[in-house]
């Protein structure tokens, strides 16, 4: 298998803090997601976008969530924040700093949003309100969470623009979104997310919609944010090399489930799940990231999942047993598991 195709960047990654999710010596997790399930009603029945997802996130770490479009990664972020459509059915727990975001009232949750937990969206072209100025949009966010005068809030807004490295911030403050470039807009969205120094930042493919050169610079900004005290990031992407560069730990999602999770080194050096392997293979060919060519077929219909392993219809190594029962997570190390019945077998080979 083409496991040797480790992206070059990982080689010069710095040593990481120990990852909290499975290690026993880890401090109390910042975020604990338990059995999270998000379903949407469709004509063909309930569509399961997020399926029994569980993970933990230690303070100050970055979890990269990797998957194709439609794998449920964005739906998961939105559910954590309570931004799913009203018609959606949610179950499970999302415990942030000891409080369950799912169980709390809409009012309490709204107060948490933008203060303890905030989010950066994929497309900065559509994420900002087009008819309000940057200043209005920043100031309302600041004053929502920190009662202060308009003048003070404006000063704080300027600081934030400095923080996200926007040149001549005074001028940008007066601008409307349509007057700014995509990269600039994304920095402003990031600035809004940082208003209250959140402990958890959710980033939904924040570089995907940007030009390649701008992507690199926004990614650099995330690197700097990573160093900020106490802030954890969930960074959703379909690009393995981006995930490998920014994250401490990677979770691979397929059809709403986490099918493999481990530290970046473990996952890239010895991917266990056939799907992860396919993604790694695909990644060495440029331009194929969103629909990995190395994996045949298309993702399954989320309203009609196969009874067994969701990946079975596309898997080259499929066995009869794969069709009938959902594989349990198999740990290959304390911090690395995969949901595939072949995992132990392939390790022993």
């Amino acid at each position: 298998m083409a496991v040797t195709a480790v992206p070059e960047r990982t080689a010069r990654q710095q040593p990481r803090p120990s990852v909290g999710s499975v290690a026993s010596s880890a401090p109390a997790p910042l975020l604990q997601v338990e059995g999270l399930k998000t379903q949407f009603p469709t004509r063909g029945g309930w569509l399961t976008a997020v399926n029994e997802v569980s993970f933990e996130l230690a303070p100050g770490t970055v979890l990269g969530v990797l998957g194709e479009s439609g794998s449920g990664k964005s739906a998961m972020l939105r559910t954590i924040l309570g931004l799913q459509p009203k018609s959606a059915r949610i179950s499970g727990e999302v415990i942030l700093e000891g409080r369950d975001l799912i169980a709390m009232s809409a009012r309490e949750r709204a107060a948490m949003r933008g203060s303890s937990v905030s989010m950066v969206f994929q497309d900065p072209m559509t994420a900002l309100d087009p008819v309000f100025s940057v200043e209005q949009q920043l100031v309302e966010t600041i004053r929502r969470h920190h009662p202060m005068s308009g003048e003070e809030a404006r000063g704080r807004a300027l600081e934030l623009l400095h923080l996200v490295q926007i040149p001549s911030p005074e001028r940008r403050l007066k601008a409307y979104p349509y007057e700014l470039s995509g990269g600039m807009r994304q920095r402003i969205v990031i600035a809004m997310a940082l208003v209250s120094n959140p402990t958890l930042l959710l980033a939904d493919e924040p570089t995907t919609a940007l030009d390649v050169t701008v992507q690199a610079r926004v990614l650099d900004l995330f690197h700097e944010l990573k160093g900020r005290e106490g802030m954890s990031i969930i960074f959703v992407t379909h690009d393995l090399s981006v995930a490998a560069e920014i994250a401490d730990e990677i979770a691979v999602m397929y059809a709403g489930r986490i099918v493999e999770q481990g530290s970046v080194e473990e996952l890239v050096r010895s991917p266990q799940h056939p799907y992860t392997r396919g993604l790694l293979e695909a990644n060495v060919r440029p331009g194929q990231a969103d629909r990995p060519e190395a994996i045949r077929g298309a993702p399954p219909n989320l309203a009609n999942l196969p009874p067994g392993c969701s990946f079975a219809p596309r898997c080259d190594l499929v066995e009869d047993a794969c069709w009938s029962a959902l594989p349990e997570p198999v740990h290959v190390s304390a911090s690395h598991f995969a949901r595939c019945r072949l995992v132990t077998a392939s390790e022993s080979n």
Partner: protein
Amino acid sequence: MATDAMTTDAAALARQWMDADAPASPESYLQAGRRRFLRNRVGLAALGVLGLLVVTAVAAPVLTTYDPNVGVPADRLLPIGADGHLVGTDEQGRDMLTRLFYGGRLSLIAGLTPVLIATVIGTFLGSIAGYLGGWVAAIVMRTMDMFYAFPAVLLAIAISASLGPGLVNVIISMTIIYIAPIARVAEAATRKIVTAEFIEAARLTGAGTPRIIATQVLANIFSPIFVYASGLVGLSIVIAASLSFLGLGVKPPDAEWGFMLNSLRGTIYVNPWVAALPGLFIFATSISFNMLADALRDALDVKD
């Protein structure tokens, strides 16, 4: 653990799951539309009401023995429920139910005909403008824009007034005001498909412009125009009745709902509820057409 039974089971499960996504036989666009329409109870009810109104209008001579235009002076202004006159009589002693049935004929004709004619003319102009583009489109569409500078009802009134009273003139004036909006819809729909591959293919086979418009374009802009035009009918019924109400439509003693409403206007202090009946019929017809149009739009899945 691995047994034959299990293998068969698994294979069956796999097959069952794989098959579930593909419908047995894909239905056509119109079949799907009809299925969706037949599931829409409001749309079906509207269709039922309209059917009833058409039947009473067409079969009026069979349904009633009274003469719609000649009354009995002694029986003037009888209230609803009077002996022999189910919903009373009008100011000339004519049976109201009879006149309401007969009135449906002219009211329906005056409301429907302009939409039909304008749809033909508007589709013609719009598809040609949309297909050819350039100066043809500029001339046609800028002329159409002029009509948007008027409140539609007022324009219909002005045209009707200058042509003189009469049902045909009402139909002409209303046709004129509907051409512009229908041409706009047709032009927009044509422009959307004019670069499509099947048009290109037809062009490559050597088909001329009239032939392409007649065969390829019309078939593909039918849905949006049909849905738009069906939405116009409800409004058209009301406008036609308005013009008659103003005395621009039928001449006495012919029965027409809008005109009846006007001539009974003076009797509201004497026999109020009978005077309101023709309006009820206009309203029932108009709302049924509007609900039918909504149901058709949903069934054919056309975005506004």
